[in-house]
């Protein structure tokens, strides 16, 4: 296991890379869902205000 984490000495470059890469992937999903829910809220508000 510790060999796996060390990755022949390159672990300190490899794991942050994966963390950043997949972190951005996850972040994109979260941001997209937030954009959708805020767009829905705004649309609802607009519909309520119009006759």
């Amino acid at each position, binding site marked *: 296991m510790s060999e*796996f984490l060390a*990755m*022949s*000495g*390159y*672990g300190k*470059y*490899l794991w*942050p*890379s*994966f963390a*950043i*890469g*997949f972190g*951005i*992937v996850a*972040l*994109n*999903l979260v*941001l*997209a*869902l937030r*954009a*959708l829910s*805020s*767009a*829905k809220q*705004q*649309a*609802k508000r*607009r*519909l309520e205000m*119009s006759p």
Partner: protein
Amino acid sequence: MNWTWFHRFGSAPYMYGFARRWAPWFGGVALLLMLIALYGGLVLAPPDYQQKDAYRIVYVHAPSATLSLMIYSTMAVAAAVGLIWRMKVAHAAAAACAPIGAWFTVATLATGSLWGKPMWGTYWAWDPRLTSELVLLFLYFGYMGLRAAIEDPQKADKASAVLAIVGIVNVPIIKYSVNWWNSLHQPATRLLGEADMDWSMVWPLLTMFLAFMLFFGAVLLIRLRAELLRRERGASWVREVLS
């Protein structure tokens, strides 16, 4: 040939429904493929002769890079379709692409930087590929900045469309820079046919490419729904969809 299926894509309510239905599937399959690719790339694939385990960064760096270029191209094509055929849905798709593409460009630069340190001894180099990828990030920012600066939504759509199309010249420069100039960045590795890499290393990479593309599809469809809602104002289909 019956083109009705194509014209349906121009209808906002149809696209909204399509996006709502398919985004979870795209996302689910993407996640599954990512896990499989990660297992294949981090556990199953053997270390490289020269780079030992450092080469494994390719599994996150190369798909990000491909996606940063692919998303820009998609954005430019959608923008062109929107301009030529005056399709609001196309403009909405282009707008939805931009933030996703920018993030993947950041991911490419960051993961590339972390790979560069052990391999080349530096976190950054002003070589053609890295520089033009950085320029790509500036192009994404310019696109989003132009959109934000124009009040009228139709004008914003059209003006940013022109910008996206003009900026497309950068994409071939990035892709072929490693062939045209003596670059620090390594040239393209052949993956299929007469491959430069062992199959056990290649299949996780191909899987990860597919996973990232499907993931882009999922996130694009989610953001597309948001863009469509923002553009359709008081249309009746919006009322139905939100109740």
